């Protein structure tokens, strides 16, 4: 039994079974997986990549058949049926197994030796693709980027089908798919192919933590016009574009429309969004952690520039150790291993919520310098808890909604799912006209005129 304990289900409820089309989809996907294993482990003289890529193709097709069939048989009210009876989506055996698999994969990816990876059958499967498209040999990072992008695209199709009744969700999902494919995969790979700095236009400092470090800046300066241009764009994105867009739209313009981490969370991670911790305790931990990371990266970056100015005179070895510590602890262990590996255990967006310094920066802007809020619709809230349950950032949305208060929270990424799952039309993402009525701290819930039009808080 899970930590949340008491379930009132005395028996495991029987969800409706699979029909034959769903079964065909699962069969095709499973055989595809087997074919991938055969390809990646089979003898090199037997054209293994044929088996591998046939397998990849079959897995995707099979999965899409299953997904299309599953969601076309449901209308919007059925989207979340039996999620908490699911072993995968409610921390059952399948959830734990998948979480451990993912975590172990990330540990191997970050800390397994390059020779282990680059001589592996798996990476060699990607040589034809990387050579064909970009003209260089695949390594583990190419494999990772490819798998990541395919995950966002395939699970993006799933999200679009699932949330097809909501234009906000459909357009937003298309946006993260576009930015992942173009800005976080194709463009950097083409740049690398053209021997230019491998630059990601959709990640900037402080999320791309070493982007504005002296070494990187030197690197860009030395890469000629294109490098200089990248440097200017990087600085503008962090210090000009981000505050302006966040003022008008809240942090969602980045976290839910552009960012690849958010993109993965809202596509591949969508089945796990309900697992985030909503307790007040978790919120306290979150605030300490995320702002500490922002402080760490900011101080570290300043230190590195002072150090560079002093030519390493004072902080030479210390700053080097600190950069290594940041890369290991935050860049790899937190953002990667825990951030994605723990999806099936702690919900999606663990990284975005507890660790991402970009999210912290955007959050401060959102809270103190933005028109964005989630508006509560008068007194219509029935405290059902759907909004809080499905908030991937662990915000207890209903605690505001049931008081008739608007929701202004630094952590809100504006995914809009609270509004989508609300059965009473209570929540709406809005860019308000003025700052003063944004939080609506003295809410009016309707009726109750005997005590004056006052709040329920």
């Amino acid at each position, binding site marked *: 039994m899970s930590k949340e304990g008491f379930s009132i289900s005395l*028996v495991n409820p029987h969800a409706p079974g699979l029909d034959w089309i769903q079964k065909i989809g699962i069969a095709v996907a499973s055989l595809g997986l087997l074919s991938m294993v055969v390809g990646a482990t089979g003898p090199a003289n037997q054209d293994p990549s044929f088996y591998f890529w046939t397998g990849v193709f079959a897995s995707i097709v099979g999965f899409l058949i299953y997904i299309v069939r599953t969601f076309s048989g449901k209308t*919007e009210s059925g989207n*979340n049926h039996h999620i*908490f009876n699911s072993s995968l989506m409610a921390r059952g055996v399948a959830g734990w197994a998948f979480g451990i698999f993912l975590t172990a994969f990330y540990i191997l990816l970050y800390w397994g030796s390059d020779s282990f990876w680059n001589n592996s059958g798996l990476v060699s499967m990607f040589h034809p693709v990387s050579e064909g498209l970009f003209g260089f040999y695949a390594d583990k990072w190419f494999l990772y980027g490819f798998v990541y992008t395919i995950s966002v695209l395939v699970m993006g199709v799933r999200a679009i089908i699932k949330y097809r009744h909501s234009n906000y969700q459909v357009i937003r999902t298309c946006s993260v798919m576009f930015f992942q494919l173009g800005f976080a995969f194709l463009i950097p790979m083409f740049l690398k192919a053209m021997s230019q700095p491998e630059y990601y236009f959709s990640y900037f400092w402080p999320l791309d933590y070493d982007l504005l470090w002296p070494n990187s800046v030197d690197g860009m300066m030395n890469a000629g016009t294109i490098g200089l241009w990248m440097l200017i764009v990087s600085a503008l994105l962090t210090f000009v574009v981000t505050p302006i867009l966040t003022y008008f739209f809240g942090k969602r313009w980045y976290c839910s429309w552009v960012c690849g981490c958010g993109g993965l969370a809202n596509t591949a991670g969508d089945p796990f969004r309900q697992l985030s911790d909503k307790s007040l305790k978790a919120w306290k931990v979150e605030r300490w952690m995320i702002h500490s990371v922002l402080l760490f990266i900011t101080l570290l970056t300043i230190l590195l520039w002072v150090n560079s100015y002093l030519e390493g005179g004072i902080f030479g070895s210390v700053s080097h150790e600190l950069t290594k510590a940041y890369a290991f602890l935050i860049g790899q262990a937190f953002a990667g291993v825990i951030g994605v590996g723990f999806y099936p255990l702690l919900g999606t967006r663990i990284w975005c919520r507890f660790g991402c310094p970009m999210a912290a920066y955007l959050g401060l802007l959102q809270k103190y310098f933005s028109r964005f809020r989630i508006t509560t619709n008068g007194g219509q809230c029935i405290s059902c*808890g*759907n909004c809080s349950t499905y908030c991937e950032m662990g915000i207890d949305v209903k605690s505001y909604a*049931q008081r008739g208060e608007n929701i202004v929270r630094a952590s809100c990424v504006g995914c809009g799912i609270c509004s989508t799952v609300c059965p*009473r*039309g209570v929540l709406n993402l809005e860019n308000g006209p003025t700052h003063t009525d944004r939080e609506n701290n003295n809410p009016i819930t309707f009726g109750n005129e005997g005590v004056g039009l006052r709040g329920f808080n």
Partner: protein
Amino acid sequence: MATTKHIVIIGNGIAGITAARHIRKRSDHRITVISAESDHFFSRTVLMYIYMGHMKYEHTKPYEDWFWEKNRIELKRAYVQKVNPDSHSIELDDGSSMNYDELIIATGSKPNKFGWKGQELKGVQGLYGLQDLELMEESTKGISKAVVVGGGLIGIEMAEMLRSRGFEVTMLVRETSFWNTVLPKEESELINRHIRSHKVDLRLATELDEILGDENGKVRAVRTRSGEEIPCQFVGLTVGVSPNVSFMKDAGIDIDKGILVDGELRTNVPNIYALGDCAQLRNPKPNRKPIEAVWYAGKMMGETVAATICGQPTDYDPGIWFNSAKFFDIEYQTYGTVLPELKENEDSILWDGNDGKRCLRIVFDRNSKAVLGFNAFGIRLRHEVCDAWIRNGATISEVISNLDKANFDPEFFKKFEKEVQLQTTI
């Protein structure tokens, strides 16, 4: 300052809990909340989501468990057997008794049963509380066919719950159209079609005659008034609710259908109040019912009684009526007065989204043109704006031309205002 009193609240639903919270906000009185149903307050309106696997019981608690101790609200799990107004005490089922200075009765409702033959068979039940949900979980294990009796809000929710498990569902509705005692014809028919699109066998103008059991005392079928037998292994009785007041009978408190209360929610017995579903107003406001068994009324009454008990005697005045529900995929919001049949002096405009899911009705006074009420299906309206329009007597043309101000749909949703405006100018 005022002396500290012991305030005992029977019932931990939205009415009782709102009262407790607001008394705490306003005072240092000792507060005890007694419930036989659950240790903690949960949102009753969402039992269906637990059954359908959208949430677990834990998620339906509006406050975390530490909240009660922190706010010094004592919780007691017990069933109140008797109220003794003379000694200012209540008797509990564990044999103990408790004294009160002020007693608030907020015991809610219980599902109606109209004495049908077979209504006590295994597999036959209503749906109101947590125990009903546990029973339903047990009773629907391994079944394939279910019948829901009644065409109201709980009936359609129960049909949705049962459909989520893939059961065949037949819905028996006495009226000629779903919920047509509340909804005008067009809206009611929209919902009829929507129910059927969810593969529920909706039988209108059909009354239950008898529930038939097998040799083990389990339901095996229902028979309708026309003599048709419908096989099933589960029967949901959702023909409305009544105030849950039976344990109060000998306390000398005036009871009609519910516990009779005055404007300040006081019963005829000093220091005893009643609110929420179990309370019946002696003098309801014009156009309002004496018992309004809805979430919102419970919430407003809770706040009202807290003011009164804490030294600011306050009349219950619920303002402009509003309510909401969801019928499978279709959200429903209503503001003001929309009667199933328009009155003599009333007229309305009706926009139909032609997708079987969206429609909007605005009722107005034929003479003054003042807007009286809204019914919205599949679109979201802004409470604040609709409330102000009705309150201030905005004219129908003013409302139509400013309809975008009331649009609460999410970004990028298909707008309806233009179509409504075009339709009304023709």
